[in-house]
């Protein structure tokens, strides 16, 4: 891979960090490689908002090569809401453009005295004043930066007001509305007084065997375009499966307390396609194009919501109007904050209001009636501006619940809000959420797809009935390894590209001689390394938990009466992983088996 551009915002100095070749071979790129690089810096004592807190933007080796859905990159560091390993995956065109500057990553440390943005033009770095940009939303900032650097084709990664003001679920946005939403790294970027990073490049992206690769990627893209799921995603977006998710009882409503949403037809991807949709948007060289472009009748073409935003601001809050949901999602996007966490935390406020724990006195007179989109709109403004109850909501659901002595009501794991795939409908998600390295995440293992029937035969990821439990624990672990590979590569998880095809693509680009076993071992290595980072920062087996709401049965819907037996699932999972049940650490034997001897020494010899 190409070097990483290291920038110290304390001094304005920059240097090139050359990635050790053996780390590329072992971790490939993206989030796994970032974990390896950042390992020494991510300690329990590190304040995510301190100047020394690292923020690493990193591509994978296939980024920008027009391979199947390979235009994504990751942002990694320490999460301000979780105090654990943080990674967030984002599409668009920014990552490939950075590679064309001759860099595969940007490593930020320090803090600027005044707001700044970075301008990297074909490899040449300028640190520019951003005081004029401070306070602008993510869309305006992208336009203003392009105008200031005089390059209309520059791609700009930005934070909005939420990132500036330290909202703990602020994201980083690029290419209009693409968002690295989860884990609050936009707030880390804001803490460094860094408003934006603009990139423009003309260099050739390195491919070891370009002729061979061209044939492989063409064939992989051709097959992907014909894939059923790809076609559904193209036509209906990620909300295409909303009806089925609701039918299975895996689409939570009313802040995870109602198992059936009668008006699901009103908020589905099908409904959007029939009403608001005017086009599709895509990431770099993607043949799927799952992004929605919608019109709300005012002549403007807008980003349409994806599944998580629709469920978060829809059924989760009992709102069934797709236009209103779109507007709420756009408001969050403009402020630069994660819609999953924002909608979840707002849902907790409504829930506590229902319970009488939160009152009009706390809300400044705002009544929180389920389905009231105007109240939600006001709360979003208050969060982004950290006004009134918004000050507490900006800290995320765990801290919000804690402030009202009701932390157990918050539907989160380790400080990250649960996404909208309910483990009562698809039991594999119980393990996905409980053991994810970044809190309750659905992208470290989107096992709900497997529970619906999406098997991966070549890897032995087989089908277990959706309410089977500990029997599928080993299957979940393999799926996590598979997805860890995706986050290393960095490939979109919507790409149904076989492991064998991916190995051939990687070998052609990186001049490696990987097998499918090497690919999966690299995924397992990445998963265990992130776990070890978290263990070192204080995570134990006690953290592998689910919130109360997910352990109470629904009375209605497709998952009525079922709750996951998390303890049983975890015991089987630990066994499959080779992890120590008492401490929650990967065993020394497992770490050594994965070639992580130095990590094993740190983890098992430190007091």
């Amino acid at each position, binding site marked *: 891979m190409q070097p990483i551009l290291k920038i110290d915002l304390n001094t304005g100095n920059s240097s090139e960090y050359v990635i050790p070749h053996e780390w590329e071979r072992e971790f490939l790129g993206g989030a796994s490689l970032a974990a390896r690089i950042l390992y020494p810096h991510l300690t329990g004592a590190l304040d995510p908002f301190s100047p020394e807190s690292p923020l690493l933007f990193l591509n994978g080796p296939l980024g920008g090569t027009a391979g199947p859905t390979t235009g994504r990159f990751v942002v990694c560091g320490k999460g301000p809401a979780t105090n654990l390993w943080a990674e967030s995956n984002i599409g668009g065109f920014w990552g490939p453009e950075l590679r064309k500057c001759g860099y595969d990553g940007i490593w930020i440390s320090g803090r600027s005295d005044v707001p700044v943005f970075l301008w990297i033009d074909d490899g040449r770095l300028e640190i520019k004043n951003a005081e004029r940009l401070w306070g602008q939303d993510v869309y305006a900032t992208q336009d203003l930066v392009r105008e200031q650097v005089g390059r209309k084709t520059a791609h700009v990664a930005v934070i909005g007001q939420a990132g500036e003001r330290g909202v703990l679920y602020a994201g980083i946005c690029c290419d209009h509305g693409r968002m690295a939403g989860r884990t609050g790294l936009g707030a880390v970027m804001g803490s460094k007084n860094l408003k934006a990073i603009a990139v423009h490049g003309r260099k050739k992206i390195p491919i070891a065997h370009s002729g061979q690769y061209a044939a492989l990627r063409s064939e992989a893209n051709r097959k992907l375009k*014909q*894939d*059923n*799921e790809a*076609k*559904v995603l193209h*036509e*209906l977006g990620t909300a*295409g*499966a909303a*009806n*089925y998710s609701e*039918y299975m009882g895996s689409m939570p409503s009313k802040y995870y307390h109602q198992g059936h949403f009668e008006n699901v*037809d009103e908020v*589905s*991807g*099908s409904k959007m*396609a*029939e009403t608001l949709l005017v086009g599709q948007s895509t990431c770099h060289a993607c043949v799927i194009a799952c992004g929605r472009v919608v019109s709300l009748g005012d002549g403007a073409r807008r980003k349409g919501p994806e599944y998580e935003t629709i469920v978060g601001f829809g059924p989760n809050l009992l709102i069934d109007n797709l236009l209103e949901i779109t507007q709420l999602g756009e408001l969050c996007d403009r402020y630069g904050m994660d819609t999953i966490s924002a909608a979840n935390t707002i849902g907790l406020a409504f829930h506590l209001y229902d319970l009488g724990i939160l009152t009009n006195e706390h809300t400044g007179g705002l009544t929180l009636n389920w389905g009231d989109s105007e109240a939600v709109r006001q709360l979003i403004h208050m969060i982004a501006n950290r006004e009134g109850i918004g000050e507490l909501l900006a800290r995320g659901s765990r801290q919000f619940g804690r402030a009202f002595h009701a932390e157990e009501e918050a539907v989160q794991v380790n400080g990250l809000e649960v996404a909208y795939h309910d483990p009562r409908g698809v039991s594999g998600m119980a393990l996905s959420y409980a053991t994810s390295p970044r809190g309750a995440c659905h992208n470290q293992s989107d096992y709900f*797809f497997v529970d*619906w*029937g*999406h*098997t991966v*035969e070549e890897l032995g990821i087989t*089908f277990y009935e959706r309410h089977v439990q500990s029997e599928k624990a080993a299957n979940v672990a393999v799926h996590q390894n598979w997805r860890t590979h995706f986050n290393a590569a960095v490939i979109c998880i919507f790409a*149904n590209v076989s492991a064998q095809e991916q190995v051939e693509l990687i070998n052609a680009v990186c001049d490696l001689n990987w097998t499918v076993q090497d690919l999966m071992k690299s995924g397992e290595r990445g998963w265990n390394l992130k776990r070890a980072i978290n263990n070192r920062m204080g995570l134990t087996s006690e953290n592998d938990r689910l919130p109360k709401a997910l352990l109470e049965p629904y009375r209605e819907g497709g998952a009525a009466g079922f709750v996951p037996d998390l303890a049983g699932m975890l015991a089987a999972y630990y066994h499959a992983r080779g992890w120590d049940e008492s401490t929650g650490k990967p065993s020394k034997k497992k770490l050594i088996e994965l070639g992580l001897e130095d990590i094993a020494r740190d983890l098992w010899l430190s007091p």
Partner: protein
Amino acid sequence: MTASFPGEEWLKDLESKLNSDERYAEIAKNWEGDLFFIIEAHGNLKEPLTFYLDLWHGKCRKTDFNPSPADYPNPVFVLTATYDNITAILTGKLNPMTAMMTSKLKVRGNLGYMMRNVPTVLDFVRVAQEVTGDIL
């Protein structure tokens, strides 16, 4: 009532069962769409095979065994699978959702309608499994 698959008798039995099955009638009461199946030669099937079903509001209005695609130029859905995969679905060895999600059963048509009506599709498969006896 079961019949050997594939065959005209099997398709007629399926039609009859679809028109008498109360559960299917209820789940599929809003379904409006005809299906054109293309079974690709594979394993024991040496020549491609087609069949057509016109499904409407919980009933089957018409079936046609081994028609030409030109006979039904605009079906709502065209479903294509190899013989081995379609028989695996009919014998319960392959989950129909797995077949769709892994493209072992390729779907062409109004995907928005399909995604809204997955329970109907799954119940159609149940009925088809119940009328399937031997696999040739």
